[in-house]
């Protein structure tokens, strides 16, 4: 909720004036608020609801150099039916892979509701020529990706070359729309661990939203710290305020380092109390993770049966 109007003139100076005119973030206060929300006690029916909702929001991810088509097929099977013994466990939101494995994922997910997300634009560093990045996006879209997770050029952002970052996002968004199918969703990875301050996280969030990103996403998962509660708070405030300003609903994806159900549930509490319940849907909130899903399934089973399963009762990939 800012009194500033969205700038019409798109140049470095106008963008700087706008982004630096956003209300500042007091880091101590933001951290205290995030910590306060983490004390909510989510039990019994609320916990069951939160676990299923969290499962439905997972972008099940594998982004390793050693990924194989076999591993991706296995991941897709798990995405469609996370708990083979219990069909009531909902499917996850998406599978997230490198562009060369999109085709494999498309085949494996055919007929299901699970989306195919692909990282692109010289993930994870974002250090390549624009033409290379755009080709990366087009390849992924052509292979059938329905969601693109791009990285911003953090070097340009930190140097204050906001227009360059803005135009790159606009260009990627255009490349996303080059496909023949339904519109491809663009998630803009800010890599907040490299942006260093919460003020920067807020400015980068707004820059990505202004440029047309459908989602703003914390991290690549390759940099520490990745998703943290204070950063999630700032990004949820950004989409909330962007909605106030423009009427448009944009999403938030938290990625990297979220492994326990407890953390996922805390983030849902944050979504609920900061952005509001409009955002409690996979269309507007995602959790990028790999091992988190297994913990959610173990907790789900614990709630249903009263007993913890061992780690061998969920599949490793």
């Amino acid at each position, binding site marked *: 909720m800012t009194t500033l109007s969205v700038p019409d003139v798109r140049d470095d100076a106008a963008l700087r004036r706008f982004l630096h005119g956003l209300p500042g*973030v007091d880091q*101590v206060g933001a951290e205290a608020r995030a910590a306060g929300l983490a004390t909510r006690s989510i039990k019994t029916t609320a916990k069951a609801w939160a676990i299923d909702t969290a499962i439905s929001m997972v972008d099940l991810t594998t982004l390793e150099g050693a990924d194989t088509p076999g591993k991706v097929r296995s991941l897709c099977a798990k995405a469609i039916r996370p708990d083979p013994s219990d069909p009531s466990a909902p499917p996850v939101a998406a599978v997230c892979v490198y562009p060369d494995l999109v085709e494999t994922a498309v085949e494996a997910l055919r007929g299901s509701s699970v989306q195919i997300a692909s990282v692109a634009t010289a993930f994870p560093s974002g250090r390549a020529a624009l033409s290379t990045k755009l080709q990366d996006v087009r390849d992924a879209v052509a292979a059938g990706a329905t969601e693109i997770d791009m990285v911003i050029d953090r070097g340009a952002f930190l140097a204050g070359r906001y227009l360059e970052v803005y135009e790159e996002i606009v260009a990627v968004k255009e490349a996303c729309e080059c496909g023949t199918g339904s519109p491809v969703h663009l998630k803009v990875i800010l890599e907040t661990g490299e942006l260093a301050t919460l003020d920067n996280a807020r400015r980068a969030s707004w820059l990505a939203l202004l440029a047309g990103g459908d989602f703003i996403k914390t991290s690549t998962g390759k940099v520490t710290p990745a998703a943290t509660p204070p950063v999630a708070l700032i990004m949820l405030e950004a989409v909330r305020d962007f909605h106030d300003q423009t009427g448009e609903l944009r999403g938030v994806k938290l990625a990297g380092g979220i492994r326990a159900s407890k953390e996922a549930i805390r983030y849902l509490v944050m979504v609920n109390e900061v952005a509001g319940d409009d955002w409690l849907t996979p269309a507007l909130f995602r959790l990028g993770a790999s091992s988190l899903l297994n913990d959610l399934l173990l907790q789900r089973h614990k709630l249903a049966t009263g007993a913890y399963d061992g780690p061998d009762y969920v599949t490793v990939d």
Partner: protein
Amino acid sequence: MATFDYAPAPESREIARLKPSYQIFVNGEFRDGTGDAVKTINPADEEPLAEIAEAGICDVEDAVRAARRAFETSWSQISGAERGKYLFRIARGIQERSRELAVLESLDNGKPIKESRDVDVPLAAAHFFYYAGWADKLDYAGFGPNPPALGVAGQIIPWNFPLLMAAWKIAPALACGNTVVLKPAESTPLSALVLAEIVAEADLPPGVVNVLPGPGSAIGQALVDHPDVDKIAFTGSTEIGKLIQRAAAGTRKRLTLELGGKAANIVFEDAPLDQAVEGIVNGIYFNQGQVCCAGSRLLVQESIEDELISSLKRRLATLRVGHPLDKNTDVGAINSAAQLAKIRELSDAGEAEGADRWSPPCELPERGFWFVPTLFTGVSQASRIAQEEIFGPVLSVLTFRTPDEAIAKANNTPYGLSAGVWTEKGSRILSMVNRLRAGVIWANTFNRFDPTAPFGGYKESGFGREGGRHGLAAYLDV
């Protein structure tokens, strides 16, 4: 659209280890007081919690005599390091029984368990730890070598932070070598009596700490009037504070008073707004606004009024009002029927004077003392709700255009306990702080407490400091 309904997450009442009846603590022993047997109730459902055999006038005599004897024969004779050992023991005792104390405090006072658990009890322990550290270092506190203790301190505390106020009073007094007679508030005696158990378990010499629950008009008065009490420390209303000061005038008694407040929370247009909203909420809705330093007047710069108020309203809609023992409750019950009546009276006056009243939609329990978080906009400086202390979850919003106007409005009150300043501009914080007439000023935060930080008022908010090195001066003959 999904809704995330938080299931009830109640803390178990059993943890409080409530006893059917409680006794006064005099000369190291628990015994029935000679006053009335009075029931203390749970303000969240109006059900009795326990019966208190309250102190009578002759118990005050006994307690002061015991405190005097303890002062002369033991407590002022032992070394500071020895006193420190006892204080460390009390601090650890509070920590060991922290869950019990938290639940008991929420039952007796009506405050949410998350506050008693995360604020009241840990801060109470921290106060004892902090002053335990001072006990053997008084020579280096800036008062010269061997600063002498005062003697017997009569301490009268309010119902809003029953355990924490007991800790604020007892810890510095004992560290400095005084002995104490503490009178907890009549509506919230339980946690102070459990603290007395902790004191007894810590093997303090008999008479060093005495706890006399009872009515202020009898027991408080008797303590104030007692010729053998060297010092009165009072936290409570300005009205009673004035009576006490009159009574102490012309006697040798030392006096410190921590009284009411009507703090201005000043938000400039360049403030970190999301954090300011949190600070405003924490300032006035923490402990149901029953806080002497509550930020009950919001002074917002005119240019951001609409934006800030709409953010604040959205935030208030997420506050969970309800059962104090539910771990997700943000706002609990008002402490007593009398306090609730006062809050209602002043809120109605605000409406009658033309201010716009707003509260989030919210269901309140049928029984118990409840008041929905409320904010008034369009409040004028002359309005009663801008001048009088409401001591409830009611915020009065006023606007200003220039820093001078903010200062003029903020200082235009008989009180001067606390204030808040919100701006990203460091130089503005410093210039505001120099001109605000308030004892505690928070910058980009509110209602933050720490045993190392002195706390106390200007003007009709009282005098004397509690906490920090300054808090020692209130219990030393310096």
